[in-house]
């Protein structure tokens, strides 16, 4: 593996991590953050992979295995907690609100077409 490949992959993955981090910061909800963190984990797995390919370190492979196995625990835990939020956020929209939103979307779609 050449230095060029290492640098290219490194830049791509760093950019990905920074973008994911910006979504973690902006939210707006915990679920958006956890989705962004999933991407972050993917970027970390990628970084470990290129590091391992560059240096030939086989001992990083178990770390990859652990990350792939454990990565979903955080998401599931947070998704469980997402139910315990204020009533205002928990409720599903009322029929009137949905009808209103629906009408709006349909009108917009008709305008577009």
């Amino acid at each position, binding site marked *: 593996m050449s230095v060029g490949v290492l640098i290219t*992959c490194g830049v791509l*993955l760093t950019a990905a991590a920074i973008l994911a981090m910006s979504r973690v910061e902006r939210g707006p909800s915990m679920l958006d953050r956890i989705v*962004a963190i999933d991407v972050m984990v*993917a970027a970390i797995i990628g970084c470990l*992979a290129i590091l391992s390919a560059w240096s030939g370190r086989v001992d990083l492979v178990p770390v990859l295995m652990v990350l792939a196995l454990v990565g979903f625990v955080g*998401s599931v835990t947070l998704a469980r907690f997402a139910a315990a939020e204020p009533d205002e956020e928990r409720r*599903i929209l009322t029929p009137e609100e949905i009808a209103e939103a629906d009408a*709006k979307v349909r009108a917009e779609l008709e305008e577009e077409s």
Partner: protein
Amino acid sequence: MNVSDIAMVASSVLLVLGSLLTLIAAIGVTRFPDLLARMHAATKPQVLGLVLMMAGLALALGTSQVTWKLTLVVLFQLITAPVSAHMVGRAGYRTGKVRSDLLVVDELTDDLRAAREEADR
């Protein structure tokens, strides 16, 4: 150009492609307007990106032991990714994080409303 050279080039290509997919996913997560759309973007590096990167890594390391372990990495990810995706998607829908105004068709809300009207009667 011998076999190991070809393997090296192939592994480089695969690793770059995987990194690129991760970056595009991050762009999608940053750019898409609502939770579910962001989740679509996030599934991509978890499945195809990971497969590409692990294939690249297997070619670069080139021992069969490691190849088996990397297959396991992909397998674990394929087993666990749908679990978290479903949990997050469902929690998002139930906690009202899904913006119905961005959906063209929303048959789940229709059905929930029908069920609620049924219960009211």
